[in-house]
């Protein structure tokens, strides 16, 4: 009897301990995800009386979205944005971390890190001044070298998206540097001593030791960076509003437009599902690839 009671308690306690977190996850992650998946199969548009209550629409929202050239362009913008922001930010973060891991450079850390503590809205507003046509910092700088254009960064269809990439790079590189700094400072010193004794050059040491030893950090940082890149949207609001001609519109910005400007809840749910699916696909494949490498090694 007493044994049984103990057993029950041992089983109960862990659940009680995770209960608050579990409730939050259910309430703010699992429930919204399921409700978005369900919602994506319904036509619900707040500004049309007959669709104000959800009407079953099958995969109509999916075919509407994926069949629209505008949405495919926004999807493409987002993938290009992520593919540009993540690798450049990561390489720069690692470079900064290597440079600043030395004690004598430590005082520069705050300079590299400080963009991180600014809210994205403030950062984007600052960058508006850099990107200003005519007398903006960038144009003045380029003119110094005798270059008279491009003048209008945020409104040029071929540069608007890259302006956003630039802002995100400036803002995030310092943040990811912190993780690499922590990773580098935890590297085993004896391995490096041995490598040096064996006459390995700095490049060999970097590619054969530092990069592989930092794989765990890289896995973490890539995952966080990709999710972050998909999630950032503030600078789109401030700098380009997705324009010109939606050339710098990103998935999350479009989601806001569809939900709050077009009042199309079904389609907004569908975009949410696609966004979650993209992120899951990436995160899982990232883990799988990384794990396989670890077991191969």
């Amino acid at each position, binding site marked *: 009897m007493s044994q049984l009671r103990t057993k029950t308690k041992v089983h109960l306690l862990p659940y009680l301990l995770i209960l608050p977190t579990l409730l939050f996850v259910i309430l703010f992650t699992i429930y919204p995800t399921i409700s978005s998946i369900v919602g994506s199969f319904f036509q619900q548009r707040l500004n049309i009386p007959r669709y104000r209550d959800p009407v079953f629409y099958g995969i109509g929202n999916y075919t509407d979205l994926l069949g629209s050239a505008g949405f495919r362009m926004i999807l493409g913008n987002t993938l290009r944005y992520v593919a540009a922001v993540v690798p450049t930010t990561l390489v720069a973060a690692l470079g900064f971390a290597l440079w600043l891991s030395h004690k004598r450079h430590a005082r520069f850390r705050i300079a590299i890190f400080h963009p991180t503590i600014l809210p994205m809205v403030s950062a984007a507003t600052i960058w508006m001044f850099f990107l200003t*046509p005519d007398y903006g910092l960038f144009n003045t700088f380029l003119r110094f070298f005798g270059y008279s254009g491009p003048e209008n960064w945020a409104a040029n269809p071929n540069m608007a998206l890259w302006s956003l990439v630039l802002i995100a790079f400036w803002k995030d590189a310092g943040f990811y540097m912190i993780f690499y700094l922590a990773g580098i400072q935890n590297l085993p010193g004896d391995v490096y001593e041995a490598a040096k004794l064996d006459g390995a050059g700095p490049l060999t040491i970097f590619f054969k030791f530092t990069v592989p030893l930092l794989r765990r950090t890289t896995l973490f940082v890539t995952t966080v960076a990709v999710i972050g890149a998909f999630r950032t949207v503030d600078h789109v609001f401030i700098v380009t509003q997705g324009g010109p*001609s939606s050339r710098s519109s990103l998935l999350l910005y479009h989601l806001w437009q569809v939900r709050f400007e077009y009042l199309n809840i079904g389609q907004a749910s569908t975009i949410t599902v696609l966004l979650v699916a993209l992120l899951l696909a990436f995160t899982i494949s990232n883990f799988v690839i990384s794990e396989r490498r670890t077991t191969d090694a």
Partner: protein
Amino acid sequence: MPKKVMIVVLMVALATAVFATGSPEPETETVAIEIAYPVAIDAPVTEILDGYARAFEAENPNVTVKPVYAGGYGDVKTMIQTTIDGGGDAPALAVMLATDLFDLANAEYIEPMTALLDDMPGSDAYLADFLSAFLANSYYMGNMWSLPFQRSAVVLYYNADMISDAGLDVPNDWDSLAEVASALTVRDGDTVTQWGIEWPSGWPYWLFQPLAMGGGQNIVGDDDTTVYFDDPGVIDAIEYYISLSADYGATPAGVQAAWGNVVPNFVSGNTAMIVHSSGSLSSVLSQAPFEVGVMGIPGKRRGTSYSVPGGGNLYLVSGLTDAERQAAFDLAVFLTDPARAADFSIQTGYIATRSSAFEDAAMKEYVAANPQAGETRSILADGGKELSLQNLGQVRSIFHNYLQAAYNGEMSAAAAMRAAQEEADAALADFR
């Protein structure tokens, strides 16, 4: 064992504390209302609004008013939507774009004011006193939904000194506008040191509308589901805009992300003419060391000029108790009082919404000192309808996409507007 019990008790206590919500409501006769207000211009509007709220409270001791400043127009609207969708208590009164009427009413985010106006003595005279262009976006489904509050118009600001020094006349049609702009563009080698005209692309449809009207056709029809994007007059207007840079070299080419820059450019004498909101008038007049002229946008035919109104109206947000609804309506009427409309106009540069406001002593004095403020009112006398229709968000975004593609030379004006018309018709099909 006691340790485990304690942990369990602590967890339960923590969970309860985290999820416990609600606070006891004070049981008094006082009505507390909030007014959501978007800050859209460079003037100390929060101080002005706070002052009006305190004055209203002094006249109505049983009502407390809390202004909520939640960003710009988009933020206020999103805030109202999320609060209502989430079942929360939204502010009772909100200033939102006059053009948002159809979507807000269809989605039941707002309540009509008709019954309250019917109960109000002298409501017919009250409504008739508003400038008619500003009331155009207040009626739908046989109801009256909003009261004009912070309203503006598209205007052309010109540096009158620069024009007369060059021996030119103030432009009065498309050709003379282009010629004056071209004559006032100054180049130093390849670099332009002074632009003849700047036509920013913030609010793209809005600043374009007077141009389309000048070409012979407004982009929006009188009913709530018709657009005229592919009308020859509209295409003509786009081609004219492009010619200002391509043929006359008088304005920077393409889409201009320069809403915030053109006013500083104009007042510092680096740009001879700008197209902007009349809401910038106070700031332009206080900074410009030269004679500033204000007019509508010249049309294609000689002697014509056009404008459209813009800005925000006061809406009653849905889900109010009777007491809150009455208090919010009273506050809306209080805010549109002629003396207050005059004061608000003088302090911000928005156009006073009521005819009688222009009879106000302070307003008369202000207009005598700054005749341009009186000018904006007459510009609106023959203003057209601002783009406002069913499914506005989507139709507007379609139009922006193609207008910008044409401005940037990615598509011809005719091809872009054909595509825009096709997509807009599809987006409006469900509403016809």
